[in-house]
């Protein structure tokens, strides 16, 4: 690259005076953050240090200095490349088309995010009004597709209390304990204190850890009435076990929304997840997407010995054979595969769509997923898995 290349970057205000190196780089970092790369102030500082250690007049050096310090996962790399091209080479078009994240569609979900939470509602939650229980009971069994705005508000609270937790497994790590096997290290350490006399044995036992839980939600058009509930369920699960829970959505592409759902406030978390998901209400290619999940995450370890919950109606537009093959692969990796289907809750449902038929042999539990009650049952199933 020619020297002095950096002066050629495109500035929105052409008349603005040429900015210094630091300012230019800080502007670049800001722009990347907008583009969806998790650029923190300390990462930005590292970039400045890295540029200093290299040759600021070489474009490749600046490229690498930024990439090595600002990115933190392979998902960041396409965004970085597009952002770099846009900022330093003035390829505005690339900025839109090449960016891995498309403009999010406005969230069509009637989640009632902005609805004020009335004080009356707060009270009514605590008051055991006779009618209340019945109303809640009705709500529990109501199909999500038939919910009114008020119903959704009420259900929001119930979801926050759900906290689905995966069953635990015994870890390879030990913890101090009063039962189990003797711990020679601690025993001898204790003996040291009494002049080498072993007065009391110390014990250790295997630690118990929650099993990994992977939630894969279909956000295609046919699942639209259920997307809100499914994300709320996922949020509750992430809240319960932030480290061992992973959430993905799939439609026309695979999106990991775990990070977004870690926000405490459920509305904020859902809004963040909604913005991260580029393919609301598109088509589904379940087999294709499942393969993407297994290639990028599942096989590497995310699905290994995990409880995997798939929320989908099984409407497969792609090749059902591929779906069957990928489900088999998933089944081999996972501890348990649970498929929740909203239609299963409807009377007279038969699993006849090609997608479901192909997937069924590799499913451990095939359950309904249309109402709050079915989600509560699902939460128990996960806990017992």
């Amino acid at each position, binding site marked *: 690259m020619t020297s002095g290349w950096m002066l050629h970057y495109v500035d929105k205000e052409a008349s603005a005076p040429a900015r210094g190196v630091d300012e230019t780089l800080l502007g670049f970092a800001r722009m990347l953050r907008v583009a969806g790369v998790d650029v*923190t102030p300390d990462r930005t500082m590292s970039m400045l240090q890295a540029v200093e250690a290299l040759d600021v007049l070489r474009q490749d050096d600046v490229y690498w200095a930024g990439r090595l310090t600002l990115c933190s996962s*392979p998902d960041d790399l396409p965004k970085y490349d597009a952002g770099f091209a846009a900022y330093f080479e003035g390829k505005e078009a690339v900025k839109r088309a090449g960016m891995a994240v498309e403009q999010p569609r406005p969230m069509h979900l009637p989640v009632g995010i902005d609805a004020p939470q009335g004080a009356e509602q707060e009270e009514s939650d605590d008051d055991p009004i006779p009618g209340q229980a019945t109303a809640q009971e009705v709500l529990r069994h109501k199909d999500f597709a038939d919910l009114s705005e008020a119903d959704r508000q009420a259900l929001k609270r119930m979801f926050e209390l759900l906290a689905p937790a995966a069953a635990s497994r015994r870890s390879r*790590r*030990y913890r101090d304990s009063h039962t189990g096997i003797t711990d020679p290290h601690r025993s001898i350490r204790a003996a040291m204190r009494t002049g080498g006399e072993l007065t009391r044995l110390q014990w250790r036992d295997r630690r118990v850890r929650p099993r990994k839980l992977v939630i894969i939600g279909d956000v295609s058009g046919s699942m639209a009435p259920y997307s809100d509930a499914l994300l709320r369920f996922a949020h509750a699960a992430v809240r319960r076990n932030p*480290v061992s829970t992973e959430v993905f959505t799939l439609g026309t592409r695979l999106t990991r929304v775990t990070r977004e759902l870690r926000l405490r406030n459920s509305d904020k978390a859902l809004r963040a997840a909604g913005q991260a998901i580029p393919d609301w209400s598109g088509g589904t290619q379940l087999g294709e997407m499942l393969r993407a999940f297994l290639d990028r995450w599942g096989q590497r370890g995310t699905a290994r010995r995990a409880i995997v919950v798939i929320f989908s109606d099984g409407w497969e537009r792609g090749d059902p054979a591929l779906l069957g093959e990928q489900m088999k692969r998933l089944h081999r990796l996972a501890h348990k595969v649970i498929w929740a289907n909203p239609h299963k809750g409807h009377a007279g449902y038969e699993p006849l769509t090609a997608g479901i038929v192909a997937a069924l042999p590799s499913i451990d539990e095939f359950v309904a997923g249309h109402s709050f009650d079915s989600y509560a049952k699902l939460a128990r199933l996960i806990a017992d898995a």
Partner: protein
Amino acid sequence: MSMKQYDDPQALADALDSTDYIADEGLATAAFLALRMGRPLFLEGDAGVGKTALAQALAQVLDAELIRLQCYEGIDASQALYDWDFARQMLHLRAAESVADADRAEIEQELYDRRFLIARPLLKALETSPSVLLIDELDRADDEFEAFLLEVLAESAVTIPELGTIKATTPPLTVITSNRTREVHDALKRRCLYHWVAHPSFDREVEIIRRRLPEVSESLSRQVAAAVGRLRAADLLKPPGVAEAIDWAQALHLLGVRELTPESAARSLGAVLKYREDAERVVANDLDKLLAG
């Protein structure tokens, strides 16, 4: 002894080249900055792309000792950092007791002497100068272990309650690798330079094979690199890495193969593909196509 420094990434790449590790621009820049900025280098990428080999090559060019910590589920401080040699402590205690006018306090003091401390890889790396510390496959360890690493990486020091703080005179060059079986915590990544190691380009791969296996002919090396490149694009459960390409070339050479043909490929496919389904798919999709071009 301080760490050897290089003027620019190219100089480091040339040095690595002399140890037969062929680094592309990104990797050379990453290693250069890690050295210059004193930051750990976090390498992610598919298995077999040469992440571990980079640490080995760096140790060689920096004239530093390579200290390796292999991570696994359940690894904890006593396996990674240090442990007390209880048996020796006990013997010392017994020996001291047999001396008539032993001073109790003094004996106790002696018990926690440095000589009774067993240095595990992390402590050893801090005490060895210069050294390259390889924390291999961090994604296999559990997340508690990451939190514990943060302290060591940030301070280049460890505090041993009975002994005090041990600080490295020259912090080791730390290389952390991950196969991405789970996501490593952001707090750790933020302290590191992050580099995604991709599969090498065709030319680089040919060169790597030639360097590692000079006895294999140029034409066979090129055929293997081309076929491996196509296999990576062929939608397999486990796309072959550089390590598999080298294995394959070596296997073919040992079988006395001079030219990669469908027959010879079929005979040696086990060296490059590690899943039955993958081998079946490739054979079903016609080996000729794999080798053509």
